[in-house]
């Protein structure tokens, strides 16, 4: 009996450590999109072609973390042909009027807390750093699923889903065309995958 207790005590930290799973974000399938009001008439969409980072999850302790970096130079709204104009919308989005990619080539999100519902994460609270300004942002997990990756015949384990959140661009100093031409509220939506390390 004593030996069993000692063995259990020794094994406990190993079990706890095993419950914290670390994932590397799949840059090819983690794609953040944004949408924003345009002239009060329509909603315009754009995306950042890829993102990188990592996340961890400990279902037993109901904790986790997320770090994600998005290259702002990858911003794309589908307008790449100048078609007689001096610049495309994508070039404009990269200029100091918006993402100022020469000075701020990346935006980052770092979690401060992961909120669970049952054993699964429901939302991620954290800080978004954009244009050198850091403000709180909550990403809500609209979908979340973990399991074997069929592309590797089950050899790789992955988690994936969709997350969304919103922020005011003026909070980050991106104020051009406010308040009427281009909306203040930016809605972020992303697909993401992470491979267990």
């Amino acid at each position, binding site marked *: 009996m004593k030996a069993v207790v000692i063995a259990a005590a020794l094994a406990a930290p190993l079990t706890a450590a095993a419950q914290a799973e670390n994932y590397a974000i799949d840059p090819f399938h983690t794609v953040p999109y944004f949408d924003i009001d345009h002239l009060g008439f329509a909603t315009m969409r754009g995306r950042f072609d890829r993102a990188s980072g990592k996340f961890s999850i400990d279902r037993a302790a109901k904790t986790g973390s997320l770090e994600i970096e998005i290259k702002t130079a990858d911003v794309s709204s589908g307008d790449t042909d*100048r078609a007689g104009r*001096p*610049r495309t919308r994508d*070039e*404009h989005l*990269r*200029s*100091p*009027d918006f993402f*100022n990619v*020469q*000075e701020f*080539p990346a935006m980052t999100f770092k979690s401060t807390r992961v909120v669970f519902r049952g054993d699964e994460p429901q939302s991620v609270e954290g800080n978004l750093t954009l*244009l*050198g*300004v850091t403000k709180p942002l909550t990403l809500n997990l609209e979908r979340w699923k973990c399991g074997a990756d069929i592309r590797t015949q089950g050899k790789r384990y992955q988690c994936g889903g969709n997350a969304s959140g919103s922020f005011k661009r003026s909070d980050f*100093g991106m*104020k*051009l*065309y*406010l*308040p*009427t*031409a281009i909306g203040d509220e930016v809605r972020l939506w992303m697909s993401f995958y992470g491979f267990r390390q």
Partner: protein
Amino acid sequence: MDELLSNPAIQAGVAPFIAGLVVALALQPLRLGGLAAAAAFLVAAQLVSGIQFSPLTATRKIVLLAIAAPAVGVLVDFAFKPTRLGAVLLALAAGAGALWVAGPVLAQRPAAEAWILGASAVAACAFLVGFSQLWLAGDAVRAGAAALALGLGAGVAAIFSASLAYGTYGIALGAGAGAFLLPQMLMGRRSHAGGTFTLPAMLIGGLIATGAMVLAKLPWTALLVLALVPLAVRLPGPERAPVWLQAVIFSLYGFAVAGLACFLAWP
């Protein structure tokens, strides 16, 4: 009111022009009417993004220099006699200012590109300030015409280079220069330019074009051409003609060069 103030025409033209005109008229008796150019630019900066300094971006460094330059210009006019050495020192300071604004951005570029862009920025800003201090500070009409053409040229070229914000700043500078010129044209009497006008106007104009080059897509060749605007307004003109006519002719000299810069900025 917010809607009105967010209109690009108000931000770039109307509000800066009114601010410049008020400053030009109110401070002309004190020989400080030249502060109109900096006032116009700062009004536009406030309307476009608000004047703040954290984080200290390249654009905010330009705003900071636009606040400091008028103070230096006034000091130069009232505390020192204009000398070649003084003009050279101001030119060197302007070059250093350009490097301070553009340096951190250029440090992330390939070395060869960074050297070309950095050298262009330093040369353009130094030449604009040094030449204007030497040859335009004593002629408020030519100085006003140079700032008008430089501001509008930098503004239009910046818009072609994908930045409406920098376009707004440039056009606002032009509006301020126009506000400085207008009372002279209407009253037929030259006012005082000095370093009070030329230092901030030329430095701001050079830095706007520098910002459009390193942060947007203004070609370095367009920046160097813009730097030749003060040289163009020094060309011979009808010295005995009425002030308004001189202002028009010297502005046209400047517009010709600024127009070439805009042509180069069109991709």
